[in-house]
């Protein structure tokens, strides 16, 4: 049974670094979770509401506490062991669903922060990566795998920069599969014109699993279906990555004008502004983002939009306005995308400080 604990004001329920084995619910009083922001080092104080759980992630994940749980006003706290919490929550599924939503938002947020810091010059974009994966399977005579990957490539990037070659490879994979079967036949010769940088001339290693004698069922090429708007969106992103900004702009515009209610609409709107910026249309880019901000003050890409607007003013030579926008990025709450903040800080420094 979970136990009730009483804590005096100014006492500490647990310290950062403590081994975590319990999950708490605040019943009465006031508790604050204090920790340093991983990015700025600033101390964040998060006040827990009565009825709210805390200490969940570290206890479930079995890693050390990431914050100090400080009692601000005399408090009663219900403490669950992990098995007690599991028993309790599985009979109150809504609690888990609510936590899943909170955690998946946190995961999205931290993932985005990480992505934005990954300025890895050797990182491949998704389109090239998918194409190379197909090449690898073709080269190692894993034809059904190659067929799957190239057919996915053709689905997502029908007008991609490697689409023509991917189509040919898809045909060779089909042909080799029906003629020789997986893992058999002469090693296919890959054209050297692609974007591959690896030396594929070396003897291909034996396929790891090639015991499937019968041709694989047709399901391999079907795969998981993606909605039409998702395909349109990825295709537009592909155009953008090929620096075909005009084509990308009109592709994103089509998605926005379709009035589709999915999350792709917001993304496409944001990307239209990026296209305008990339095309050097600073005024249009500013105008576009301004209208998004007016109609969607809670747009998920707000910080990035403000940053690009700052850049647009910068390009137009209006450093004061540019700084104003960079500063706006900085004043956004910690919950907003803080990698834009890093970029904004750098930009402000480049302009000679705030």
């Amino acid at each position, binding site marked *: 049974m979970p136990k009730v604990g009483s804590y005096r004001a100014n006492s500490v329920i647990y310290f950062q670094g403590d081994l975590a084995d319990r999950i708490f619910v605040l019943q009465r009083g006031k508790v604050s979770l204090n920790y340093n922001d991983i990015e700025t080092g600033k101390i964040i104080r998060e006040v827990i509401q009565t009825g709210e759980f805390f200490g969940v992630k570290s206890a479930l994940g079995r890693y050390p506490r990431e914050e100090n749980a400080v009692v601000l006003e005399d408090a009663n706290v219900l403490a669950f062991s992990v098995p007690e919490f599991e028993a309790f929550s599985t009979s109150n599924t809504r609690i888990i*669903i609510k936590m899943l939503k909170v955690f998946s938002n946190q995961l999205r947020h931290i993932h985005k922060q*990480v992505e934005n810091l990954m300025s890895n010059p050797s990182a491949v974009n998704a389109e090239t990566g998918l194409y190379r994966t197909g090449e690898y399977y073709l080269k190692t005579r894993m034809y059904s795998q190659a067929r799957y990957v190239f057919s996915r490539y053709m689905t997502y990037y029908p007008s991609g920069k490697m689409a023509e070659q991917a189509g040919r490879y898809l045909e060779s994979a089909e042909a080799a599969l029906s003629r020789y079967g997986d893992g058999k036949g002469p090693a296919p010769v890959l054209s050297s014109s692609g974007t591959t940088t690896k030396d594929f001339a070396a003897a291909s290693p034996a396929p790891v699993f*090639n015991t499937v004698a019968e041709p694989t069922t047709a399901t391999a090429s079907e795969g998981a279906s993606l909605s039409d708007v998702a395909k349109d969106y990825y295709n537009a992103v592909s155009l953008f990555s090929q620096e075909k900004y005009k084509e990308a702009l009109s592709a994103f515009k089509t998605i926005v004008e379709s009035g589709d209610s999915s999350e792709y609409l917001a993304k496409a709107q944001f990307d239209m502004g990026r296209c305008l910026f990339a095309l050097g249309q600073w005024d249009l880019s500013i105008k576009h983002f301004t209208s998004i901000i007016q109609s969607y003050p809670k747009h998920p890409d707000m910080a990035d939009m403000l940053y690009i607007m700052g850049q647009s003013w910068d390009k137009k030579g209006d450093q004061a306005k540019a700084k104003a926008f960079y500063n706006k990025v900085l004043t956004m709450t910690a919950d907003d995308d803080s990698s834009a903040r890093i970029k904004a800080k750098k930009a402000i420094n480049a302009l000679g400080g705030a």
Partner: protein
Amino acid sequence: MADLAGFGRFARTYQAGEIIFSEYEPGDSFYLIQTGKVRITKIVGDIEKNIDILSAPEIFGEMAILEGAPRSATASALDIVKVLEFNRANFEILMMGNPQIALRLLKVFTKRIYDQKRRFMILTLDDPQAKIADVFLMLDETQGSSIPGEDQGDKREFKVTVDDVAHWAGMNSSEVQALLSHFSKQRRIDLYADKIVVKNINDFTRFVNSKRKK
């Protein structure tokens, strides 16, 4: 195992060798294994590297909740595999009726959040050498050294390649190669084809702490 009757419409079957999803493919669904084994691989250079082998009732592909993010690895069936396929639109229905699965997913998320935060800490270090040292500290914290049950003092052995370290540090391989050689010359690490040995993990801890801004 949770009661999964009524979820037949989400069921998918894959034959041995068949790909469930490919690395770099955009994904919007994730999977719960019912029977069979799923192999998770990544193509690194000229080889397809095994990352993991999963079986029932594990969940994979859950990063699909990150809209539009490409898959970070390939999942394929090792034998006949039956899975339930979910996406953001229908996962709540599944979770409501199956708290055990919801709880499992919750645990997977706590782990991912921790991993990503840790990774963020590496990337925010300015000093490239410190980034690399911190990659080893992270590996030590999360997966432990690869000699289990052996009292090895401060020495740690990691089954990683230069490319792996470069991936975690967000740096390019040639730069990482140069810095690792430098560490090796200083006799702080030993480089092998299939592993890297850190001679004194505490030395790296002190080094990283001295470079981390307050």
